[in-house]
């Protein structure tokens, strides 16, 4: 009998925990629709820290800004602003570029990496770049810091290209690269220093969040439920997307419930199935398109009406969007930015001025453009990104179709 009582006590101890969590969260779930503030499970305090009003306002304006340059070459367009004088770097001949890459561990980075290598071949052909030595940090800050220090110690680099793994951790390593006196190009995620010759990036995460959340809230009513599928916490590019979207959902009274999925389709499908079991899900918001197909399949398998949805310009999502005919949009985190660093270095070696902060266009794909983008990317694999911007490079389209990762 005694062993029973032990188990009974332990289980009884577990019950308050379950009850407690139920109590603390449920009121906030029910309270939302009325007030329109403090939304559902979305009230994770962390995203408040990521919200930056001035950055939000800047990116909101940049969404409608005019870009300098030829729209046929979006990877060379930029928003007018302070320019960097590069005459001191002017030098003839071919130069060696050293690239410290954060990783190629997701389809977006892989697509960009393929494009970058084709761009490299073009510049090797014209005698601007002799070779590019690349070190892949495999998503690890320490590895990337070591990679950059290796390049500096080796002393054979004529220019650095750095795609930082994370913002704060890489700042000092980038500063050390700047101290070598060679041109330094930072792209994608940023660092907390402006010592680099240029920082190349699309408009940013807040613009993504504004585009997507506005799209959803225009089509939904106050009180409707949106499931927000997020990859992981703590990455600025992704956190900014959610911070902006969350603010707009709260303002419009949309019940947004956020989950971290790690892009794991099993988790995504379980989450959507459970949400569908508790009530109608009217919209799906994603901070990246990876896994969008699994989310839609969950609706199909449950026999529910497909949601209004925002994904990304990944081919798997665009194809599924076309097949199902859902009301959707594909925000774009311009993949063609992977070409720009090498083209920027071409200008640097010629001594031409370049923007100190090179803001590339970031235009979502809307319904009326869907067919056009599917047409342009016919035969591309599912992990390919429609706005990869490498149509004029040698090897198009076979290299991207076969998706041979260099």
């Amino acid at each position, binding site marked *: *009998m*005694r*062993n*029973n009582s*032990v*188990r009974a006590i*332990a*289980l009884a101890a*577990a019950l308050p*925990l*379950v009850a407690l*969590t139920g109590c603390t*969260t*449920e009121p*906030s*779930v029910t309270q939302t629709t009325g007030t329109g503030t403090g939304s*559902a*499970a979305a*009230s*994770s*305090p*962390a995203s408040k820290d990521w919200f930056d009003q001035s950055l939000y306002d800047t990116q909101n304006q940049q969404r409608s800004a005019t870009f300098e340059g030829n729209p046929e070459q979006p990877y060379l367009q930029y928003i007018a602003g302070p320019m960097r004088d590069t005459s001191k770097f002017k030098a003839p001949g071919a130069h060696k570029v050293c690239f410290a890459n954060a*990783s*190629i*561990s*997701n*389809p977006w*980075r*892989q697509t960009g990496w393929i494009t970058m290598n084709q761009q490299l071949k073009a510049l090797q052909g014209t005698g601007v770049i002799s070779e590019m030595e690349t070190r892949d940090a495999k998503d690890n800050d320490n590895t990337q810091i070591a990679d950059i220090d290796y390049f500096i110690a080796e002393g054979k680099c004529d220019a650095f290209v750095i795609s930082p793994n994370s913002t704060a951790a890489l700042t000092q390593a980038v500063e050390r690269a700047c101290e070598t006196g060679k041109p330094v190009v930072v792209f994608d995620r940023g660092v907390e220093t402006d010592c680099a010759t240029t920082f190349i990036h699309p408009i940013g995460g807040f613009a993504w969040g504004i585009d997507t959340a506005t799209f959803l809230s225009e089509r939904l009513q106050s009180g409707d439920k949106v499931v927000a599928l*997020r990859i992981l*916490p703590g990455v600025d590019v992704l956190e900014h997307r959610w911070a902006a979207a969350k603010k707009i959902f709260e303002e419009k009274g949309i019940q947004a*419930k*956020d989950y*971290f999925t*790690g*892009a*794991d*389709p*099993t988790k*995504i*499908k*379980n*989450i959507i*199935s*459970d*949400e569908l*079991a*508790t009530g109608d899900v009217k919209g799906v918001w994603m901070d990246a398109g*990876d*896994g969008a*197909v*699994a989310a839609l*399949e969950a609706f199909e*398998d*449950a026999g529910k009406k497909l949601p209004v949805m925002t994904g990304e310009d990944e081919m*798997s999502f665009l194809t599924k969007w076309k097949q199902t005919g859902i009301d959707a949009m594909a925000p774009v985190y311009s993949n063609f930015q992977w070409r720009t660093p090498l083209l920027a270095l071409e200008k640097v070696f010629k001594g031409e001025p370049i923007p100190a902060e090179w803001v590339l266009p970031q235009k979502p794909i809307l319904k009326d453009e869907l067919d056009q983008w599917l047409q342009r990317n016919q035969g591309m*694999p*599912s*992990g390919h990104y429609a706005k990869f911007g490498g149509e004029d490079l040698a090897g198009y389209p076979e290299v991207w179709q076969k998706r041979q*990762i260099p």
Partner: protein
Amino acid sequence: MSTALNSERSAILKQNRASRSERLLRAVRTPGGAVFVLLTGLLATIIVLNPSFGEPGSFIRFVGRTAPIAIAAIGQYFVIVAGEFDLSMGSVVTMQVIVAGNLIRQDDSKVIPVLVLMLVLGAFIGLVNGLITTLLKVPSFIVTLGMMLALLGLVLYWTGGAAQGNPADSFRQIGRGGIQDVPVLDIIPYPVIILTAAAVAGFVLMRRPYGRMLIAVGDNPSAAALAGSRVWWVRTRAFMMSSLSATVAGILLVGYAGVHPSVGRGYEFTAITAVVLGGVVLGGGRGWVLSAAAGAFALESLFTLLNFMGLQATWRDTVQGAIIIIAVAAASRSWQRKRKGASSAAHDEQHQMAAAPTPAEGTEQGGRV
């Protein structure tokens, strides 16, 4: 129970002659039985919070989506009850998912050959794990950890860490489809059928000589060896069953979710947690195979319950962890008490050996009595 009884022999007799309901009650009081109580409690809570979950159609879908982890838990059970670990399980799932995606693509004619290849690969990985553990005497914790990293590296090398696209729909039907238009249930997903088959096979196997041997080896390998069993081969087969179950889980997951390098991540720990939650003792020798499967269902129900309660994404994992620790602690406390012989004399296997030279009826299933 029968602490008042003075004779060991009569304690056994009394236990064996107990009525069906008494025996059921006694089974429920073991950790392997308590998991069924926990599972029922969790499911009841979910249905109270959200009645539509209890409808046959949505419930059978829940069973279907839990099938892969339950099958993995059954596989992990064989290894754990034999006194070992299999940490390579998650990587085997991931590898098989990628193999399916990359080799089948959209070609229906490749479905069968690739399926066979995957099963052979699964058995081979288990064989390697088992032989290194048993013949080279490397602890299975290290062997399978090494295998986990080796396979993950292979996947990374092959894919660069990102998905290549889903295989042909005919292959995905195994994990996604089902028998349609069934009365009441609406659909019987194929994973439910495969899980049922796996559970029945596991149940029967544990009642056959091999199953007894497995538990004996887990309880005391030296004694089992002295009694004439080939310990190395018994354990190696357990590793092969574990890898094969991971392969089957992988096949179902490709259908259910699709191809992605993150599919299968953390599966080994979920499976081990499920097995322990099912009252199976780490270190081997005690536990019931169906309790391990029930442990998987209890875990999955817990995750679903947390989804329904609308817990904040940021501290969901913490709550999950706390509940799992409490549940496992509750289970292990009662085993410890039994081991010390604080309760019924009939539960002590040593006494049984002394008292009854011929195996008595009703003392089967190792420590589950």
